[in-house]
């Protein structure tokens, strides 16, 4: 049974789609639940899209390395890229979009970091020399730890 994966890909939407499919196929052999596979795919999709969009804004061939290890009911993950650093050298905050506005004012972005923060634990960013390193854990058990959820969405179980 697979306990570890390592995938490298170029930071563009086509490669990211392919890479997410590969990782899901690898993790499926570890007999994770569909809920856990979904959660991992959503988190990785948001993180990889963010790297493609913000770390490598002017290239579609920037390298991203993704590694994961299953320890019990947690997937411990690390992504590395050699693109631009996070603004201010820190993680974007977990801000929930305000949806109680007129249609014309609804946000079209900003959902990504909210989902990443909500679905992961122990999320850490570091700039090491010329690379960005993101470390995080994705719980693989059925119900997400609502105490760690930064919003009052208590009924949410992905």
């Amino acid at each position, binding site marked *: 049974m697979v306990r570890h994966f390592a995938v490298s890909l170029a930071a563009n939407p086509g490669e990211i789609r392919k890479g997410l499919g590969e990782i899901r196929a690898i993790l499926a052999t570890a007999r994770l639940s569909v809920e856990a596979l979904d959660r991992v795919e959503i988190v990785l999709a948001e993180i990889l899209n963010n790297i493609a969009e913000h770390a490598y804004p002017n290239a579609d061939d920037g390298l991203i390395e993704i590694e994961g290890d299953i320890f019990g009911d947690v997937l411990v993950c690390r992504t590395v890229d050699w693109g631009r650093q996070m603004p201010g050298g820190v993680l974007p905050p977990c801000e929930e979009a305000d*949806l109680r506005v007129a249609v014309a004012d609804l946000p079209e972005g900003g959902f990504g970091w909210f989902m990443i923060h909500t679905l992961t634990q122990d999320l850490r960013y570091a700039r090491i020399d010329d690379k960005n390193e993101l470390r995080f854990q994705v719980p693989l058990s059925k119900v997400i730890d609502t105490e760690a959820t930064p919003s009052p969405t208590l009924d949410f179980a992905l």
Partner: protein
Amino acid sequence: MQLSSEQHGSTQIVKIEEARIDAMAAIGFKDTVRGVTGDQTDRLVLDLNKVEFIDSSGLGAIVALMKLLAPGCKLELAGLTSTVQKVFRLTRMDTIFTLYDNAADSLHDPAV
């Protein structure tokens, strides 16, 4: 982006014939759907029954489409699969759209 479309009076059902509305599919999404929207349509139901995965770019594309169609045409959603439903709930996007279990329900029970 593959679509199919049915007109029922002033309601139009546009089915997304793709498994993913991700960063790749989100490019051009709103213009493609707008392009097939009829002049007489005042209610567009997006049938997401075939969509197995959506990310924040896909959500953004659906919001952008909603804004593009408003105020003359209301955007509603049908047939959310379980993963898509979870993403909508997590981001609370489920609170801003009328949702139907399937496209047929949207014709029987128009939330006008």
